[in-house]
């Protein structure tokens, strides 16, 4: 399994044709207390860069973009009852959705962990 990152602070875990998407620990830290997550519909066809989900903190709503194109095959239903999972475990239990990748070459544009860390340090 390999993990990729976007400059919009999403992470993407790829295993075969399946990608799991969430927001990074840095992003949850910036957003603060998360009180609601609107995940995409299972079956939705996402294009890279589309609005895919909305994450709501006490104060504000933020869009989460589709880091990769593909069809949504699963969403993290645990977030419905416990949106704060995104704060406590952004890069594991707080994942948002899974897609079947439609264009693996998109991954070439994403960062690896080292590059993402350098990107965040530069912010």
């Amino acid at each position: 399994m390999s993990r990729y990152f976007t400059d919009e602070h999403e992470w993407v875990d790829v295993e075969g044709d399946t990608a799991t998407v969430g927001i990074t620990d840095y992003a949850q830290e910036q957003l603060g207390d998360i009180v609601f997550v609107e995940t995409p519909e299972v079956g939705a066809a996402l294009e890279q860069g589309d609005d895919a989900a909305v994450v709501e903190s006490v104060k504000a709503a933020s869009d989460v973009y589709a880091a990769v194109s593909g069809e949504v095959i699963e969403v993290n239903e645990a977030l419905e009852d416990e949106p704060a999972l995104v704060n406590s475990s952004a890069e594991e239990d707080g994942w948002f959705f899974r897609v079947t990748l439609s264009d693996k070459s998109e991954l070439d544009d994403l960062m690896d962990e080292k590059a993402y860390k350098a990107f965040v340090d530069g912010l």
Partner: protein
Amino acid sequence: MSDNKTETLKKLPLDSWHRGFGARMVPFAGYEMPVQFEGVMAEHLWTREYAGLFDVSHMGQVQLEGEGAADALEAIVPGNISALGAGKIRYTLLLAQDGGILDDLMVTNTGRNLYLVVNGATKHDDIAYFNAQLPSDVTLSHMEDSALLALQGPKAAEALAKLNISPMQPGWPVPTDLYFMEAGPFMWGDIPLGISRSGYTGEDGFEISVPAEHAEKLAAALCALEEVKPIGLGARDSLRLEAGLPLYGHDMDADVLPVEANLNFALSKARREEGNFAGAEQVLAQYPNKTDKKRVGLLVNGRQPIREGASVVDADGNHIGAVTSGGFSPTLQKPIAMAYVPTALAETGTEITVEQRGKAISCTVADMPFVPHNYHRKPKL
């Protein structure tokens, strides 16, 4: 998130102190302001249980002096200022000549002059409007060298009592003798403080005007107490929303008249009868309940917060109103909001629909405050 405009933003007297406490600073009302320290939720709940210290130095502090100051102010506000006793505070509205709300403000009769606290984002416009309206024998001074701190929460009085603040003159009350909407002059060592029992969180608490050069010393002394933590603007906003208090520039502005904004209590009886304030004709034509729209509270059915700008819609999806403040209530653990709705739908319990990002969200019109006020009111005799 980062921006190049930072250079044009002004710094609060407590700027470096906030940063030392780990504040995340954001642009607000022309200043770099602390939006949060440890997190909005924790800070909000701390304030409801103990006491929070807010830096509200961006707000405008103004003094009006002169024989006719109260009468002159009454020409533009609908509050009964000339009847305000020494040491008493009144919430009132600065009205345009057509009755639109230019600002909301607190007016204190200090016994020597009128002391006004106005919103930060509007203070320069307010002062220009005052100067244009006030007669020449009333002088206005903008207290730019004073900071303003708000200590809010059920433990605020207990905390303030530990600071050894004394009355300006022997025999006068100490700060904790004040009731809600009372104020007085005090000394903390050799530092003069103007303290009022007021705030905008729904909690008991105090607003403390202090010379800017001493603000850090006072903030440090308060936050050294076990009851007190510094709290950011984020929690100030969620607290005032739970308290049902409208925020200028969001829940009211120059396009809204007082009755529409559900601020009838700010239209004092004597002044309504006299009808001699700015916009009185337009304002009184709507009194007490003859408006097309009304500000109401909303409880959101479900967990998704609705935000300022979301549309109130009818059964056919037509826009009939708008959400003006919305967020998640840390105390109630569910989303709450304020909105303007047609008066016919303003009754408590009415089900309404809000559309946000293409999604219909059902809400119920609710009584405000959402969380009961905890003011230290003078007992009724």
